[in-house]
């Protein structure tokens, strides 16, 4: 039966039934009103006859007859009503069936995209902030010459100058403070600086234009920093930036939106690689961003600025908590990564939950636990019981965790806790996961595999001690090594011990530490400097940040040991400005150590002195190079200089200077305490000990790991990292950042060792280890790194300045499908020339990513020359297509920012190639993997 016939029948049925229904209702109403109308007359008739019968007995027969007649009529009526009711019911049922049939034939009702979005908006409680966005902020602000010329209060400049002094060396700190205050380098402020200090306008122009941190035009009220580190790059940082610019309506030639609300910046690396892609808005870091989470993040920033963030209640006051016995402690990781993962809120929630139980439980902030893929991590430690570890904890789980391990004191609290638990369960209506599902066991295979091959030396006691608590550090063998050195050993003994341990510089080049030290020791000069290089500029690396954030006292102890050995009395920690928490922790730790006599003029009562200062970097990658770093501390542009003379002979202010990496220093206390032999027992022939790596990229379990040297790359990726995410194919590991190279999957059995890595074309570098899978385009990776080094080249050497530019042009051309067959040879030729003719490490190693990808993935380059991108990354060479596996779930259409996909529920979707901007959102959103890149 055709649809039309069906519809006709359904309508006829419904129509006929409707007529019958309403007719019956009419008949019933008529009958009812007639009966009602007769009631009075009939009653009157009975009354009359009763009256008559009372007077005359012979009339009673008539009364009885009337009774019978009326009874009969009433029964008759009841029967008729019953019959009518039946007809009514049947016709009503038929009417309903007919109506339902025709409604059904009208087709399936499908919600519109708008309706779905509206529902989502309700759930996500975004309605109010959305409204605010459309109305926009009150005053529009456009950076223009008038604004720039606007007079400002210069009192702050005077204050800054009095704080940092008038010498040219103070240039960078002064500029940083001024920028912090005025949000950019205001011309009036700069003029004031030049007037009051010995700093010349030329020097300011030189420095300010060299360091990427400095801004020369006004910015929006909020600053959005999108991390473009390696891990973030492969995880789609560009899509985040694109979406931010699109969402805010930022024009191509500027970074600030038309209303002056947001400024979007790209930064090299924020060191939250396991949470990639990452963006920072004002002070809040957002991890695991996806383009469609961008509006939420912006709303959160607006809300935070408006002060309507939900502030948690302060912990409940409780008198008996002070005296109650300490039941145990709850440890929560509060490194930058963890905070970006949301552990700050969990910390607050835990404090409240503990306060509600009335017991005394120490909630301890610990440094990085290493398992960054599981953040936020919470561990409960109760003496005499096994520790319990929870991963991926949210603020809503805090109460459950606390109650699981700590019984509330007092009946009233117990009842309250029980009721709250039930009430919360009722409120969430079956949608919460039980806390036991968050618990992880150290014996669980994934955790065991992650921790098994590791050996914690630089990261000793990770996840167990409070980074800001000096007493706890002391209880855990802190400063024992320093005490041993200054009391029982001579500087020569220390150097000999370190030499014997085989420790090599962890900054990347692997220069033997003992050798460097004896050189500084032997150098002539009363004043010697010691410098800790924490300018971890490599995108994709965050070991130094973690070490400084989690073990600030150990870093200081290491520096003190080295200073004792080489005879330095003054030192600097050069820390990237992108690591505010590291700066804060180190500053706090230095202060505390000076108070307690571990630093200062009389170290441990021996009369030795060491003063440490912090120098914040200003966003120049090249300052990781030691001579550039020294120039930067001196307040100059960070240009490397020719070596020799080495810094060991003529370093900072032409005095002998020891420059070592953070990790090198951090390893020292362990070596002194356990002896050089136990350190040398670890590792390979030429590379001793352990190395800290930042494992990130496409692995299942990313994090901060410390492994003995000699472990193979495969073991790191497959055992510790748990293999490739989404079970894709392992393609390569990028080691060493922009100076390093890619180790392809077939060479994954290469051991982690300075020489072995150099042999395959990579370098140890500072330890960034970004795993790549088959969706990562190697040409794109090479281009990414080259763009980075090209941007950060100081411009001193022509080959580095212009050669990298040319190489980048060629790579860009190849990625856009306009490559020339001779390009690959030109690339190689240029690469070798740059390597030969550059002065410093940056230029010498800049072509490495290109060379190593050319060596192992030449066929990918050739595919690009043919106009194909095998990994589907290079936008100009790909199109997106929906396959037959599409179920019509509309998710792609809902998320497409360009309206390139029509909303066609339950049918195969189509992508409009004209409108498509290859943002890749649809592919990541498709639950059926029905979108392919061709």
């Amino acid at each position, binding site marked *: 039966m055709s649809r039309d016939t069906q519809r006709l029948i359904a309508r006829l049925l419904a129509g006929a039934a409707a007529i019958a229904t309403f007719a019956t209702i009419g008949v019933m109403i008529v009958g009812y009103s007639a009966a009602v109308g007769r009631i009075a007359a009939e009653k009157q008739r009975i009354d009359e006859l009763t009256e008559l019968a009372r007077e005359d007995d012979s009339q009673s027969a008539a009364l009885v007859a009337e009774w019978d007649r009326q009874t009969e009529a009433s029964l008759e009526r009841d029967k008729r009503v019953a019959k009518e009711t039946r007809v009514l019911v049947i016709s009503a049922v038929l009417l309903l069936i007919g109506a339902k049939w025709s409604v059904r034939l009208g087709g399936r009702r499908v*919600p519109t995209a708008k309706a779905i979005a509206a529902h989502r908006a309700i759930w996500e409680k975004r309605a109010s902030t959305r409204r605010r966005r459309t109305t926009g902020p009150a005053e529009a602000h456009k950076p223009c010459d008038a604004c720039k010329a606007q007079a400002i209060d210069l009192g702050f400049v005077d204050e800054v100058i009095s704080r940092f002094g008038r010498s040219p060396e103070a240039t960078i700190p002064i500029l940083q403070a001024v920028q912090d205050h005025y949000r950019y380098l205001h011309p009036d402020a700069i003029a004031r600086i030049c007037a009051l200090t010995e700093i010349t306008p030329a020097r300011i122009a030189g420095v300010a234009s060299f360091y990427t941190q400095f801004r020369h035009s006004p910015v929006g009220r909020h600053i959005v920093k999108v991390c473009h580190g390696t891990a973030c790059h492969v995880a789609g940082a560009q899509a985040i930036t694109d979406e931010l610019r699109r969402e805010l309506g930022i024009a191509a030639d500027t970074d600030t939106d038309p209303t002056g609300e947001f400024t979007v910046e790209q930064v090299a690396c924020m060191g939250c690689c396991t949470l990639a892609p990452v963006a920072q808005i004002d002070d809040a870091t957002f991890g695991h961003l996806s383009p469609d989470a961008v509006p939420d993040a912006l709303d959160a920033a607006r809300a935070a600025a408006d002060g309507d963030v939900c502030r948690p209640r302060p912990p409940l006051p409780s008198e008996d908590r002070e005296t109650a016995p300490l039941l145990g402690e709850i440890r929560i990781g509060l490194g930058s990564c963890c905070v970006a993962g949301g552990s700050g809120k969990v910390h607050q929630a835990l404090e409240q939950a503990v306060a509600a139980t009335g017991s005394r439980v120490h909630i301890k902030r610990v440094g990085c636990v290493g398992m960054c893929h599981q953040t936020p991590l919470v561990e409960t430690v109760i003496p005499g019981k096994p520790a319990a570890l929870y991963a991926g904890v949210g603020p809503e789980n805090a109460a459950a965790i606390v109650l699981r391990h700590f019984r509330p004191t007092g009946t009233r609290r117990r009842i309250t806790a029980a009721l709250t638990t039930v009430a919360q369960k009722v409120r969430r209506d079956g949608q919460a996961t039980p806390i036991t599902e968050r618990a992880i066991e150290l014996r669980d295979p994934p955790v065991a595999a992650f921790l098994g091959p590791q050996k914690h030396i630089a990261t000793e006691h990770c996840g167990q001690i409070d980074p800001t608590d000096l007493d706890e550090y002391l209880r855990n063998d802190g400063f024992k090594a320093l005490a041993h050195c200054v009391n029982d050993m001579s500087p020569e003994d220390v150097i000999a011990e370190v030499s014997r341990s085989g420790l090599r510089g962890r900054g990347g080049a692997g220069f033997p530490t003992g050798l460097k030290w004896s050189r500084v020791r032997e150098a002539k000069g009363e004043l010697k400097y010691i410098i800790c290089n924490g300018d971890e500029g490599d995108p994709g690396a965050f070991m130094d940040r973690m070490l400084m954030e989690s073990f600030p006292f150990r870093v200081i102890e290491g520096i003190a040991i080295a200073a004792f050995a080489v005879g330095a009395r003054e030192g600097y920690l050069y820390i990237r400005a992108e690591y505010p928490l590291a700066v804060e922790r180190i500053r706090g730790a230095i202060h505390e150590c000076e108070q307690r006599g571990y630093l200062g003029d009389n170290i441990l009562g021996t009369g030795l002195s060491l003063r440490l200062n912090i120098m914040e970097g200003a966003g120049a990658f090249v300052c990781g190079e030691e001579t550039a770093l020294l120039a930067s501390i001196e307040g100059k542009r960070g240009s490397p200089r020719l070596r020799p003379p080495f810094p060991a002979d003529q370093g900072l202010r032409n005095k002998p200077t020891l420059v070592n990496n953070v990790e090198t220093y951090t390893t020292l206390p362990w070596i002194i305490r356990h002896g050089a032999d136990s350190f040398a027992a670890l590792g390979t022939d030429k590379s001793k000990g352990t190395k800290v790596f930042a494992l990130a990229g496409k692995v299942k379990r990313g994090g901060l790991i410390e492994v003995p040297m000699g472990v193979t790359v495969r073991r790191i990726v497959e055992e510790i990292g748990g293999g490739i995410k989404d079970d894709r194919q392992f393609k390569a590991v990028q080691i060493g950042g922009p100076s390093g190279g890619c180790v392809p999957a077939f060479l994954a059995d290469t051991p982690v060792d300075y020489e072995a890595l150099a042999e395959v074309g990579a370098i140890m570098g500072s330890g960034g280890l970004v795993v790549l899978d088959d969706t990562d385009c190697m040409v794109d990776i090479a281009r990414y790194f080259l763009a980075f080094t090209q941007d950060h080249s100081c411009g001193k050497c022509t080959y580095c300045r212009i050669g990298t530019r040319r190489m980048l042009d060629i790579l860009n051309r190849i990625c856009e499908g306009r490559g020339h067959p001779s390009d690959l040879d030109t690339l190689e030729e240029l690469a070798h020339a740059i390597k030969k003719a550059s002065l410093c490490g940056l230029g010498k190693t800049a072509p490495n990513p290109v060379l190593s990808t050319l060596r192992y993935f030449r066929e990918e380059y050739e595919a690009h020359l043919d106009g194909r991108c095998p990994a589907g990354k290079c936008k100009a060479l790909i199109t997106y297509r929906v396959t037959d596996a599409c179920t019509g779930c509309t998710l792609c259409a809902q998320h497409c920012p360009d309206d390139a996909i029509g909303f066609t529920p339950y049918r195969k979707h189509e992508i409009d190639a004209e409108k498509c901007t290859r943002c890749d959102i649809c592919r990541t959103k498709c639950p059926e993997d029905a979108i392919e890149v061709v």
Partner: protein
Amino acid sequence: MKQVSLAVLLILAISFITPIGSFGAEYTREVDVVPPDADIGNGYVTPPVQHPQPKAAWWSAVDALLLALAMGLSAWIVLGRRSRNWLVVLTVGCLLYFGFYREGCVCPIGAIQNVTVALTDASYTVPFVVLVFFFLPLIAALLIGRVFCGGVCPLGAIQDLVLLKPVQVPRRLDKALGTLKYAYLILAVWYAVAPAVDREFIICRFDPFVGFFRFAGPGNMMLVGGGLLALGLFVGRPYCRYLCPYGAILAILARFSWKGVTITPDKELDCGLCVESCPLGAIEQMRAVPSSCLYCARCFASCPREPINLPSTVPQPDRGGV
């Protein structure tokens, strides 16, 4: 599917065990006040005791069994077969039996008050079948949610069948009206615990649909019932969602249910195509909310992962052998 069959078995088992009590105790009562035999005339002799008709006891057992069976079937159809059509068949069957044939009595909704009175007044007893009817759906709600409401309850069935063109009630209004049923529940308990003279069985007295089942009833309640049915053409099950006091208890228990309806047969897509498919407002955040999901099986058809919607190129979801 293992869990579903387990739940069904459990419900059946409980139902088989519980009615046995009702056969054991034979109900007898001394006759104390009767009209004298002479007044009745025709040689009538008053029997010494009154016995209930044995048929009635049997019917109670049959009712209890059928209830359990219907709930088991409903659970299986919704969770196992995921079939709206079969559920409609069950709904019509239950409407005809529990509604029109048994004339809407015994029903668990009214039993709230009987059970409450029995708990507070020692002189008041309730038949065992009432207890079964009252507790069985509650136990089921703890296990798998409000399966009783789905295809079994005759009051729900009559509203479910008239639903013609559902509209989405604005969520706030829906939530606000939803609190009425709790007020009704409190009122019902209040009247039940009152002293015998003030006691009022308000649930049964103001039952809007029982009049339809009996083709007779107070005119005003018939009007209310008719009005609710007319409203029910567009608003899904208004009585169940906003007024039913038994629904209030079920809603609370269902929050703790161990299993429930999942809209999608296998993987959650969060595509949102189901958001407006529920005429009862029981879908929030693209999931069925146990406390307001009435097991009507309407949402399944809206899931692109449901076999009827899937193109042949996509692997069919595993039905777990059902």
